[in-house]
């Protein structure tokens, strides 16, 4: 497979406040997030000539956001979709630049994911009509994201002996990380016991196995390595990317192949192949933790442990700050906020720069204590390579490997 390893960089990241009631339009939030990323990169609006965004009929498209910023575009595209879009669009941005269509691309996601469009059973989506072929599952009360994942999780527990307690360590670890993150919506540390004693949503998911729906906008900016050299921040290089890699059937994936297999099975060779590294070389991971179980499944499918051993892996301490390979050091979707994948990429960029925005007084200068007690530091010492494991619906996944 062809590789553009190290030819492109992420040079700017930005976001708005994580809240549960922004009181703002997705247009205003997108403009703020993109502006923050432009400033972070040390660019001006005139330096950006590409724009990509993703949405599910719940956001504002680039043709409204770019003019508000004073950006004239040579390339833009609004993509339909959720979680697996983040890494995929980073890949598309490099492709658009490589094709000569533009030189610097801002990628954003803006959503009132709590106050306007909730993913689950309530809110505007619940009133949408059922399309004909959805009738293979929707009439039986299977509609929300958690419900759609539940069969895979239940079968994994049956086949591999994975326990609720093992997987609850994901929430415990991410809540620990969030307690070092001033931006996080949920900063309180929770225990495994808290997770497994919270109420059932859909088996095997308890309330605290599920992420925190959020109002927020996020942005990352991609440009060539040559341009990146002259910019404000230490460039973060793109080593490999896989976008929306799918299982054999996207529509009713349960009917084909092992349902405990997730798309990372197909994505890993693409992304590791481009990067020329393996899982053992990765210092920090960023999983799509819409649920505790998705983290466990992704980490094993990408080869951070053997298939079936995800429960042991996530409960071993490896994924915690101070562990061998911390995961979602910002608190991720479970605690920082649910952004359809963007905030874990932003966090990994900051980790690689060494300037994670924790409670260390001189964090912005890259001075950290590496003291992971509550309310202190969350910078990983000497992080060189990070990996993002993007996800959306059960049979689709994306991935991104970055190095400093």
């Amino acid at each position, binding site marked *: 497979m062809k590789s553009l390893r190290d030819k492109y960089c992420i040079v700017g990241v930005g976001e708005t406040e994580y809240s549960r009631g922004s009181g703002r339009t997705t247009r205003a939030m997108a403009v703020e997030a993109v502006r923050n990323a432009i400033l972070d990169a040390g660019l001006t609006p005139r330096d950006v000539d590409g724009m990509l965004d993703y949405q599910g009929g719940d956001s504002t498209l680039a043709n409204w956001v770019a003019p508000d910023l004073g950006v004239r575009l040579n390339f833009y595209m609004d993509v339909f979709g959720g979680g697996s879009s983040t890494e995929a669009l980073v890949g598309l941005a490099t492709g658009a630049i490589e094709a000569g269509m533009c030189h610097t691309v801002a990628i954003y996601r803006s959503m009132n994911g709590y106050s306007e469009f909730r993913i689950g*059973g309530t809110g505007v989506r*619940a*009133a949408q009509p*059922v399309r004909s072929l959805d009738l293979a599952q929707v*009439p*039986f009360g299977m509609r929300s994201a958690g419900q759609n994942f539940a069969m895979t999780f239940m079968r994994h527990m*049956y086949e591999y002996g994975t326990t609720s307690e093992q997987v609850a360590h994901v929430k415990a670890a991410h809540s620990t990380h969030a307690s070092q993150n001033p931006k996080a919506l949920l900063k309180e540390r929770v225990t495994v016991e808290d997770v497994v004693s919270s109420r059932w949503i859909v088996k095997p998911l308890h309330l605290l196995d599920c992420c925190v729906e959020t109002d927020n906008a996020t942005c990352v900016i991609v440009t060539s390595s040559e341009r990146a050299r002259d910019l404000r921040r230490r460039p973060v290089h793109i080593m490999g990317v896989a976008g929306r890699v799918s299982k054999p059937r996207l529509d009713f994936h349960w009917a084909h192949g092992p*349902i405990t297999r997730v798309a990372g099975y197909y994505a890993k060779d693409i992304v590791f192949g481009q990067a020329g590294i393996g899982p053992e070389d990765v210092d920090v991971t960023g999983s799509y933790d819409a649920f505790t179980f998705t983290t466990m499944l992704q980490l094993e499918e990408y080869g951070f442990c053997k298939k079936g051993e995800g429960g042991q892996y996530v409960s071993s301490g490896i994924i915690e700050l101070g562990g061998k390979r911390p995961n979602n050091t910002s608190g991720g979707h479970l605690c920082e906020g649910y952004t359809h994948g963007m905030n874990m990429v932003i966090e990994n960029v900051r980790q690689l720069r060494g300037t994670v925005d924790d409670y260390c007084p001189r964090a912005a200068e890259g001075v950290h204590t590496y003291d992971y007690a509550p309310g202190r530091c969350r910078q990983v010492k000497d992080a060189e390579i990070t990996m993002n494991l993007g996800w959306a619906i059960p049979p689709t996944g994306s991935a991104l490997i970055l190095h400093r």
Partner: protein
Amino acid sequence: MTAEGKPVPVPTAETRHYWTACREGVLSYQHCLACSRPQFYPRTLCVGCGGARLEWRASRGLGTVHAVTVVYRPPTAAFRPEVPYAVALVDLDEGFRMMANVVGGAPETVAIGDRVRLVWEQRGDAVLPQFTRAEGGGR
């Protein structure tokens, strides 16, 4: 669907035969005449070989639970009176897999490996396939 009601199938060109058969008490599935694979749900081509010659066959309605979950938080208001309810992936003896509720008995007791048999649910003008534990089957 209406805000109050549970989703009711609206037949399309691909699914009309299937839903009509349901109303007549027949669980139908497609059988590919080229590669002999069973297929569910109905489509225009065989997803195994691309074959266009698909024949309708009738299932005996007996199967085994491949995976099961219990829903506690209803996806829409219409399902609120039903929680908690069991949803299962059922492997029919004819070799295809489908999703439905397992009704009758406590939902938490439905387990992978349970034998189930087809029952019908009238919903609006439509009839939906559902399952219940087969007598003497399962555990």
